[in-house]
């Protein structure tokens, strides 16, 4: 991960559901230096929540000894988020990305996680290796600051 001249932060924490809120709030606080709108902050909090929940439920199968990694980077008005687990990985990534598809219907999942991430962010990239883990890389331009750079 190149940091270039931009700002960045790294976070790692136990794969426990009580840390989902901590992860959202931390990323939101880091990004607040770009002066985002309420809507942009909500989008970012939602995608962090989706990605971290996936790491916990799917990556680690609710095993709290797993570790979730978040890397956030700011380059001018663009936020890059990389959210990773070293868990089981995804066998069929195209199927996983289908709206309403869930590999765990018994848990009453809505199957909307990836759809939400793709919709709320400008760029979305999923890398996964069975047995090696899953990494989601997403970018979003923060519009409220954009005016200043143009």
């Amino acid at each position, binding site marked *: 991960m190149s940091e270039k001249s931009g700002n960045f932060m790294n976070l790692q924490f136990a794969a426990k559901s*009580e840390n989902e*809120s901590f992860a959202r709030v931390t990323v939101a606080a880091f990004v607040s230096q770009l002066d985002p709108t309420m809507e942009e902050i909500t989008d970012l909090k*939602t995608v962090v*929540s989706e990605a971290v929940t996936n790491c916990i439920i799917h990556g680690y199968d609710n095993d709290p000894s797993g570790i979730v990694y978040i890397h956030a980077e700011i380059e001018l008005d663009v936020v890059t988020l990389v959210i990773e687990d070293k868990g089981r990985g995804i066998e069929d990534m195209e199927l996983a990305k289908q709206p309403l598809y869930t590999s765990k219907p018994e*848990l009453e*999942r809505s199957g909307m996680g990836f759809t*939400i991430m793709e919709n709320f962010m400008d760029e979305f990239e999923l890398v996964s290796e069975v047995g090696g883990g899953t990494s989601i890389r997403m970018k979003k331009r923060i519009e409220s600051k954009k005016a200043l750079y143009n």
Partner: protein
Amino acid sequence: MNLHLEMEQRRDTLIVRLQGELDHHTADSVRLQLDEEIARGRCKDLIFSLKSLQFMDSSGLGVILGRYKLIKQKGGRMAICDVNPPVYRLFEMSGLFKIMPVFDDEGAALSELEVAL
């Protein structure tokens, strides 16, 4: 816990007010409390009143859709009211409004459910 749940029974309708953040962590307890109340058989219809719900993600959608299935199976109806903009967007994206009505406030939701009886 950063989610507060309040229930109020009005005739056959259970009004569920959610306050705080509905995510994967808080979803389980909401699901348990609601299913326990629904299993008591005192209510037929259900209204989710979401004025003070500040955050929701797809885990929250799962809870709402799950209760919709349950209520529908028992022949009841479900409505949502008082939705703030961020939660509204999520509902819109998921197509939830295609299967259940949304109202401005609890009064409007209640009178609609009663009229439609």
